[in-house]
């Protein structure tokens, strides 16, 4: 096991109260595995990744839990120890390629900085490695483009540069926080393909943070669905798309537009809005938007229950076995499965 997150809670102390952005979540990533965390804005997925990297900014702080990287707790490490791991064993690419590179530094200097920080090699070797990395991520005439400044490159190219920078020290874990969100679809596919290739090449694990189920179906091995800071469902990618269990996951899958759908029906929409984090419903956070909400849902918070290799946080599955009933047998999931494959 490469990374084990145990009961992680991250909160933001605001004047109007404490927001629990991440609420007691646990998951693991194995070597070479791609784990996707899916959720809408404010679900806590990005905060999770920043917590792992130790990059939370005030007023955010890790309130509780352990982040074990190769059995060492990152949260308990000194800043110095953490710096050795950051960019070296664990690295990260961000959502905004346009603004994530330093505008006044040449591409090569930004990548070399990372290499020279973590590897004991000469400047010349670092430059050679930089050009090699740029070449690996598919930047044409890498030796020349290395001298470019970020503003001389397109968004897709910049994301490749970010990726090259993140991979320069051959990390064991790459955290990709919405790596394709700001890019158009063809570039998006190229970047995902690149991540996939790099995974194969370096046997690197990837924590893929996204709100895009298309990306998940294409790239991930396993999926965690987050809602309001909690994990509501966890499954391998095939099971999730074939048979989503949690009503929220079902809703998400149903709201994917399908390219071969000729009917005039409006696209499905999950009703209501994400609750205000300062004023969460007393029971299940999804209860007021759920089509299957019961009286109990508004009073108690369901546990994340493990059932045949997957996990779900919903009362619908409390007593029943996974094979019969729930909402999994109804049509939405079938549509969702097709939706998933349509994206592929």
């Amino acid at each position, binding site marked *: 096991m490469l990374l084990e997150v145990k009961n992680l809670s991250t909160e933001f102390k605001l004047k109007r109260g404490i927001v629990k952005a991440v609420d007691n979540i646990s998951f693991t990533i194995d070597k070479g595995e791609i784990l996707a965390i899916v959720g809408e804005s404010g679900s806590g997925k990005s905060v999770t990744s920043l917590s792992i990297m130790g990059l939370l900014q005030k007023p955010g702080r890790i309130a509780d839990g352990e982040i074990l990287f190769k059995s060492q707790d990152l949260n308990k490490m000194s800043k110095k120890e953490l710096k050795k791991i*950051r960019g070296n064993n664990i690295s990260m690419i961000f959502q905004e390629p346009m603004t994530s590179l330093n505008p006044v530094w040449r591409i090569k200097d930004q990548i070399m900085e990372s290499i020279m920080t973590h590897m004991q090699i000469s400047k010349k070797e670092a430059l050679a490695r930089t050009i090699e990395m740029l070449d690996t991520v598919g930047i044409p005439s890498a030796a020349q483009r290395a001298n470019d400044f970020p503003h001389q490159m397109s968004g897709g190219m910049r994301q490749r540069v970010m990726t090259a920078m993140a991979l320069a020290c051959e990390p064991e874990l790459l955290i990709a926080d919405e790596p394709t969100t700001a890019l158009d679809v063809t570039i998006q596919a190229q970047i995902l393909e690149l991540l996939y290739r790099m995974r194969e090449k370096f046997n690197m694990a990837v924590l893929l943070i996204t709100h895009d189920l298309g990306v998940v179906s294409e790239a991930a091995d396993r999926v965690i669905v987050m809602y309001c800071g909690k994990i509501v469902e966890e499954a391998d990618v095939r099971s999730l798309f074939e048979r989503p269990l949690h009503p929220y996951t079902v809703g998400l899958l149903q709201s994917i537009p399908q390219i071969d759908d000729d009917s005039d029906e409006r696209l499905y929409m999950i009703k209501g809005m994400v609750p205000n984090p300062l004023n969460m419903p007393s029971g299940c956070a999804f209860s007021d938007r759920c089509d299957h909400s019961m009286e109990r849902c508004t009073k108690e918070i369901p546990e994340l229950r493990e059932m045949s290799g997957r996990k779900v946080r919903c009362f619908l599955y409390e007593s029943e076995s996974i094979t019969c009933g729930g909402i999994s047998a109804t049509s939405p999931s079938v549509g969702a499965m097709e939706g998933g494959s349509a994206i592929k």
Partner: protein
Amino acid sequence: MLKYIIKRILMLIPVLIGVSIIVFLIMRVFSPDPAPIVLGQHATQQTVEAWRQANGLNDPIYLQYFNYLKGALTGDLGTSYYTKTSVTKEIFTRFPATIELALVAIVLASLFGIIIGVISAVKKNSIFDNAGMLLALVGVSMPIFWLGILLIILFSGVLHWLPSNGRIDPLLQPIRVTGFYLVDSLITGNMDSFKDALRHIILPASALAMYSMAIITRMTRSSMLDTLQQDYIRTARAKGIDESRVIVRHALRNGLIPIITVIGLQLGSLLGGAVLTETVFSWPGIGAYTVACILKSDFPVVQGVVLLVATIFVLMNLLVDVIYGFLDPRIKYSKKEV
């Protein structure tokens, strides 16, 4: 880039013509007649007339200006009514003192301003930040002459650490090479002079630096607060590099543009002569001298100094713009933008 610089320097010509017309008119319209001041109140009407005639003050004003311009083009800015020496020479003897004081002050102001500003931004809302901002507030609000007097009382009067006036002990005056005592004494290897010149410049430079430092501190703080929020700072942190490197090489480097702008403008105005500081510390610079000349209606000197100051301001702005190009690769001075 070279083309751009040449273009900008050519733009000096209309600026100088405009400035010279304005100062010429102001001096002649608002200043008292210099003749009685020069000749004394007992001068006869005849001598006054003769003096006015000799100095061309009886010509129509456009002719006076035209003659002045003709002289200025050949490098002759006229002679002072009082000392009878040429204005260029007057400026040449006094200006190094002003430059020296301004440069030392701006170096002090930039150094402390940037350091305090950066720390205040990094430790936002901490005690240090509040103390730094209080200092900046005091710096912009405190009258410079009062600060100067306080410094003299403390370091010169009470503690006897530093001299209170002048540039140097006259006995230690170095041989003139550049006119900057600190430089001249070093060139000629005269360490006693150097130490004495340094001791003399500390108090006036500190007093003068205070205001600029306050402005630079505030600009640095706000610029750094902005750049520290940028995505590329997060990227830099994610690389695992030292926080000090993140702050200096990534954040400060990007936040420098507004800081350089205020430093350039501050230096421009300091070079115009710090009248109050020069007066309080009896510093033989151009500021106090010019004010004296304005009061005495010494037209040629005032005109010469104003032209010089205008030139410096334009060149200072050009220098700042050129530095932008080096600081930020996105800024290119192409034909279109000029």
